[in-house]
């Protein structure tokens, strides 16, 4: 009677980190040793899912064997698996980096006990967050999405407050209140949907959702909730302090992954489930906010004096590109825009986590992150400095990075659909990005005359190489562009079935 269904692999990316989280809570010493194993297992299960997708196409998995209106359905299709792959890749990198980070700090303690506490709770919290992120990408039930989002945000808040600094705790409680508000707004939208249609499954909603009065209100409420969590421009106020004051691996998680979760949902809601209920005006509104985010975030990033704040503001700016895609998707074929969005998200996840890791390594070695005093880092952290520079190339959108492909797709979509102004915003944003990237990179690579290395720390490979590898992946993503774009076409239902040529 022992059967193991091949379809059941779909729950593994959720169950592995979940089990790991409980295990790390129970046995406090195993975290550093077993976390890379758990991360690898999750990565392997995602690769198997990817292979299944290529072989069999998109699938649905009915949890508990109950079909759609009654039970909860998991589904994996192109976009979901690509987001899983993004999380897996970045997650493995962050796990390795966190190991190096904590062992470095425990080896050179300022206050005994503090780092042990942080490491002890980091592992279960991070694994829980990872499980919830995977659940969010796979779930196809609007109420289940609410629960996974809450799991993500509670874990994210606890992680953000983990450093124990007063600034990080103030930022964390603000983050908690904002994301609680966002969740409630989303839940109210769910209530309206359930009142109108009496079902919770996304695919079924997609079939029957029309322009009923309840639908628009629900979509508006859900959108506001998700925008708050994604930190789009006027609602971004909580993001920079929360991301900049956390521990370095936590900043990488929050900035690289967590904001992508709610954005992914938003995109699916707008272009799959409720594509019948949206209006051009609303799309342009989101595009304008995105343009505001690009410009404002970049300008703020240029003004910052601290490296981590600069990187955090650049997240605000980069998130704006994702929203530029909204008005473009309505006129141009969806394919290009889906491709641009997924590319942007993947490349940004790798590059931004690499940047935060590099910033954290620099902070650990010289004890501050004031940009104007960063000269000469290259002399003793060459790999980290290079990782920062490569990640910066991706943010600027120079070829062959993933960011370049994304921006190219956005640009061509905007000119093809005669909405050239969005293309102008993209170009101006890239120009501003190069300003704030060069500002730091110049400092890192200058070695003034007579410069001597003050203090030698033991080299930690785990601190340097994960960041470098992730940055390199984000750089080389552009060379392999057709492959993810091909995966994208497999799943999503309303994506045109044109298989794109190579990178332009």
């Amino acid at each position, binding site marked *: *009677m*022992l*059967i*193991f*269904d091949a379809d*059941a692999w779909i*729950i593994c990316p959720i*169950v592995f980190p*979940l*089990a790991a989280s*409980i295990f790390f*809570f*129970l046995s406090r010493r195993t975290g550093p040793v077993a976390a890379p194993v758990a991360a690898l297992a999750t990565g392997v299960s995602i690769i198997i899912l990817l292979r299944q997708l290529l072989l069999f196409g998109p699938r649905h998995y*009915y*949890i*508990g064997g*109950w079909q759609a*209106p*009654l*039970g*909860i359905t998991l589904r994996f299709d192109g976009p979901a698996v690509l987001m899983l792959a993004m999380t897996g890749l970045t997650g493995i990198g962050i796990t390795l980096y966190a190991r190096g980070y904590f062992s470095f700090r425990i080896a050179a303690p300022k*206050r*005994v*006990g*503090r780092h*042990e*506490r*942080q490491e*002890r*709770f980091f592992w279960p*919290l991070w694994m*829980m967050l990872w499980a*919830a992120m995977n*659940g969010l990408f796979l779930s196809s039930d609007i*109420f*289940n999405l609410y*629960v*996974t989002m*809450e*799991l993500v945000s*509670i*874990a994210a*808040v*606890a992680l953000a*407050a*983990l450093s*124990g*600094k*007063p600034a990080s*705790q103030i930022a964390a409680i603000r983050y908690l209140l904002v994301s609680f508000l966002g969740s409630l707004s989303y839940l109210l939208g769910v209530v*309206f949907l359930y*009142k*109108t*249609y*009496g*079902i919770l499954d996304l695919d079924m909603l997609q079939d029957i959702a029309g322009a*009923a*009065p*309840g639908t628009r*209100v629900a979509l508006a409420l859900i959108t506001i909730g998700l925008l708050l969590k994604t930190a789009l421009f006027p609602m971004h106020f909580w993001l920079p302090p929360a991301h900049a004051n956390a521990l370095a691996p936590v900043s990488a998680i929050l900035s690289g992954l967590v904001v992508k979760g709610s954005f992914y949902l938003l995109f699916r809601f707008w272009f799959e489930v409720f594509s019948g209920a949206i209006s051009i005006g609303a799309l342009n509104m989101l595009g304008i906010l995105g343009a505001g985010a690009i410009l404002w975030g970049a300008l703020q990033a240029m003004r910052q004096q601290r490296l981590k704040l600069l990187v955090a503001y650049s997240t605000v700016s980069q998130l704006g590109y994702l929203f530029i895609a909204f008005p473009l998707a309505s006129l141009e074929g969806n394919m290009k825009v889906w491709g641009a969005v997924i590319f942007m998200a993947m490349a940004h996840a790798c590059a931004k986590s690499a940047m935060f890791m590099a910033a954290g390594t620099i902070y650990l070695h010289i004890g501050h992150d004031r940009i104007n005093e960063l000269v000469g880092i290259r002399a003793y952290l060459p790999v980290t400095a290079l990782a920062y520079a490569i990640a910066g190339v991706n943010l600027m959108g120079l070829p062959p990075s993933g960011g370049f492909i994304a921006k190219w797709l956005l640009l061509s979509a905007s000119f093809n659909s005669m909405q050239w102004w969005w293309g102008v915003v993209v170009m101006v944003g890239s120009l501003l990005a190069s300003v704030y990237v060069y500002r730091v990179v110049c400092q890192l690579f200058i070695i003034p005359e007579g410069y001597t290395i003050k203090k030698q720390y033991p080299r930690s490979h785990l601190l340097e190489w994960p960041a470098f590898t992730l940055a390199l992946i984000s750089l080389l993503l552009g060379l392999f562009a057709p492959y993810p774009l091909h995966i994208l076409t497999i799943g999503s239902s309303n994506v045109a079935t044109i298989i794109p040529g190579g990178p332009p």
Partner: protein
Amino acid sequence: MLTTAPAKYRRKRIDPLVVLVFFLLAGVTAMLGRTICIMPQQMPGLENEVARHLHNSGVASPVTAVLLNFRGYDTLLEVMVLFLAVLGVWSLTRATFVGYMGDVSPVQLAMVRLLAPFMFLVAAYLVWQGSHLAGGAFQGGAVLGGAGVLMLITDLPWLPMVPARPLRCGLALGPVVFLSVALGCLIWSGGFLVYPLQAAAFLLVLIEAACALSIGLTLAALFVGGRPYGELMEEQPYEGGSGQGDE
């Protein structure tokens, strides 16, 4: 702090921003209310679906069937949310509250000694009743948590000495049992959370009992608001003397 407001606070000037927020919200609420009024009021939900499959769920109460069987995955994640709350709270701070809140009157002590065992019984009854009437793990767990809070504020002498390891295991019991049952189903009947029909009733009660215990402990632990002293004791022998903050 707020009770002793000086006179000048009472005569507050009205902030124009507050007025703006008020009218904006009033407008939005009116719009939402109008939408509710024009929406069809009696849409069929999922009650017919639930009724059709209830006999396959292993329990007689529809709410419990939805909670643990039809939408059991939601509940699994929800148990994880509670677990996560304890994790988050413990990661933030050590417990400062050890149960002592001034003098405990002998009446209170006697009452709690009488009440607590009774509350345990009620909790167990609620869990058992959940399979056919209203009740279940969360109701039982809430009563257990209430008993825990009562015992905490009564300063029972043995409470601060609860060792950390059994406490951790108790907190994780619900998540562990739920997750292992779900995975066991995967191996036994080929699907995640697909309970075998003949064992469904037993498995659901098992999950409910384990979750109720963990929920009760979780609520009491959240009330304490920090990790207990036994937790992390070996690793940080010096933190105790360094005051509250570990900034």
